[in-house]
């Protein structure tokens, strides 16, 4: 039963008029309405009275966040907070656009799943990127879970919702998180240990694993064999004795053959460099020592590489290119030819129209610069098979031709993709092969 009526007028704390137009949805804490906010169509989240543990603190935090403004366009951030009315309050945010679904609806769905691994990888990059910005701004999300994201499964674009629990790292909004996504120390703390940036990083890794591997990272045979999941057993699995399903040192929680088919299949196909990051992210050390968790930059480096390794075979199947070398399509058996590669300081990537090189792929960098574009591989409009290398860095880059002649590439200029050309960017060498 909606708390607000159609046509009801509310006001923000700065006196802007809000007209309630339509009830959209209901959640645990409150309801969401479509409203007219100063002539614009917006969403209003309206809290159920008594749903919040500490409404005064919550209201203040909301007002502070709205005043500070969104750290990134990926967040459906509070635009404005309402005056109190009927013992409660709400906030205005952007409406969810068409074609976006909650991650919890996407995972395992037949109707609205990711159309491709490229889109899934893109979603992972955007999620990590948004959290990097959030954490760099001194916030922690505190309740990171599969209900927080609206994702476009066609493109991988991400909007982060439920931003009302976001608080300055170290402050308490009373929330602990969602079971299965809470970091072990939060589960074990039983309310005495509060979520922070490090616990966010556990939840983030779990979300990435779920998106890419279609299974919870701790739900292997131990989980399958639980006849009845009581709170006590859940505490053991997610809190006191967490064990990654692909922990190379202890296979006792490995996925169960013939049952957890999807994750076993995907693990077999994914590139080693990606799997090894997850092995590190869910190592006993990282599970039990919050300071040892993978940081956003670590993820960006590997995810950007992974995205560049996903190419489409002529049969339509997506192929994960291994070691930037020609890889056999696992569906039609034809080799997916890798004719060109870009050799970076740590590894090589497949060069195809649309491949991008970011700052974080050249090695250590400042996290803020991680996703700064350095270059892109482009194709000729009249000859799509012909490749070029575009300078996206905004700087003049120095290059050496195969015969040893020095050249300069101006910002946005394209040079032919000639094997043997070496480009210098940020004191690192990029070699076209």
């Amino acid at each position: 039963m909606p708390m607000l009526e159609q046509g009801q007028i509310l006001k923000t704390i700065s006196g802007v008029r809000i007209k309630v137009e339509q009830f959209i949805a209901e959640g645990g804490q409150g309801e969401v309405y479509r409203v007219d906010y100063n002539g614009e169509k917006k969403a209003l989240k309206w809290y159920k009275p008594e749903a919040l543990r500490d409404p005064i603190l919550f209201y203040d935090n909301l007002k502070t966040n709205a005043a500070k403004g969104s750290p990134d366009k990926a967040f459906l951030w509070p635009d404005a907070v309402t005056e109190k009315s009927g013992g409660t309050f709400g906030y205005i945010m952007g409406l969810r656009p068409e074609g976006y679904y909650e991650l919890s609806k996407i995972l395992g769905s037949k109707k609205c799943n990711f159309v491709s691994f490229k889109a899934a990888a893109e979603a992972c990059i955007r999620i990590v990127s948004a959290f990097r910005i959030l954490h760099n701004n001194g916030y922690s999300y505190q309740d990171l879970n599969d209900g927080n994201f609206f994702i476009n499964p066609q493109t991988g674009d991400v909007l982060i919702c439920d931003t009302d629990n976001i608080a300055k790292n170290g402050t308490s909004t009373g929330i602990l998180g969602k079971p299965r996504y809470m970091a072990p120390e939060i589960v074990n703390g039983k309310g005495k240990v509060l979520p922070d940036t490090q616990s966010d990083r556990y939840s983030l890794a779990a979300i990435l694993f779920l998106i890419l591997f279609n299974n919870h990272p701790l739900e292997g045979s131990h989980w399958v064999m639980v006849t009845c999941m009581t709170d006590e057993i859940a505490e053991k699995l997610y809190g006191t004795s967490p064990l990654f399903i692909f922990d190379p040192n202890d296979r006792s929680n490995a996925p169960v053959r013939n049952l957890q088919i999807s994750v076993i299949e995907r693990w077999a196909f994914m590139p080693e460099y990606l799997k090894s990051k997850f092995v590190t992210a869910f190592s006993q050390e990282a599970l039990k020592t919050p300071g040892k968790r993978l940081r956003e930059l670590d993820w960006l480096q590997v995810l950007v590489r992974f995205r560049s390794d996903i190419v489409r075979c002529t049969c339509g199947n997506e192929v994960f290119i291994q070691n930037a070398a020609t890889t056999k399509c696992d569906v039609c058996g034809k080799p997916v030819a890798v004719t060109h590669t870009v050799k970076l300081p740590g590894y090589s990537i497949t060069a195809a129209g649309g491949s991008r090189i970011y700052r974080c792929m050249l090695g250590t960098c400042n996290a803020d610069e991680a996703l700064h574009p350095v270059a892109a591989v482009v194709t000729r409009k009249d000859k799509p098979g012909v490749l070029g290398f575009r300078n996206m860095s905004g700087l003049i880059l120095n290059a050496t031709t195969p015969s040893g002649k020095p050249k300069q590439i101006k910002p946005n200029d394209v040079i032919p993709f000639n094997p043997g050309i070496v480009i210098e960017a940020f004191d690192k060498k990029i070699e076209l092969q």
Partner: protein
Amino acid sequence: MPSTEGVIVKKVLPLIYVIDTSGSMFGDRIASVNEAIHELEPILREKVGEIPEAEIKIAALTFSSGAQWITANGLVSLDDFFWNDATAGGLTDLGAALKELNQKLSRNSFLVSDTGFCAPVLIFMSDGEPNDNWEKELNNIKQTNKWFQAARKIAIAIGEDANIGILTKLVGSNEAVIQTNDLETLKRMIIAVSVSASMLAGSSRMAGDAASGSMILEAATTNLDTDTFTVAPEVADFDGPDLMAAGTQDVWDDSGDWN
């Protein structure tokens, strides 16, 4: 490359209704219960049909003079769940219902699954005083049935004649008993309790919830885990196939219009 649509393996969450259909429920009371469950069908399908935490399955047991399952063949998935109206008449044999529940809450009966279960949710509804030897059956199920012990139990007391003391004993805590005289409220309660119980696994927790959650989440303790980690499953290999082939190169020199 594997499909992006792989199935996520879930545990089953049994949502079990135990409904008093004795003579005193005759008329608008049982009609309200029937109506509520009819309304609940599409709501559950929409709200929890695709939750990633669990697959909801339903069973319903009625008791009057004796006890009878509406879902005689065990738990029913949401897609297959269609409610045939219950009719009221007869005594209030709560003991018979508990005995029946005790038999079916078993791995040898209703609770069969490859992936295991979430703690069952038991929702009791009654408007009167039991006639049979319910205490003996309650003690029996409480002491011997681990599923019952682990279950999250809620009771809805309908009208002023419902014996709240007995319902409290049934669910283990007076904080898990809700009482209403109003039939419209009853309907909404049945829906709200069912939805929130189903979504419990997927809702965020607040600090201090462990204590307050016990209102409906009767302590799910016992030593269930002793028979959970004992079977060694066949585990998978980690290593994938090696896909490697020599790369090829070609050379050109051109400039032009670029995408």
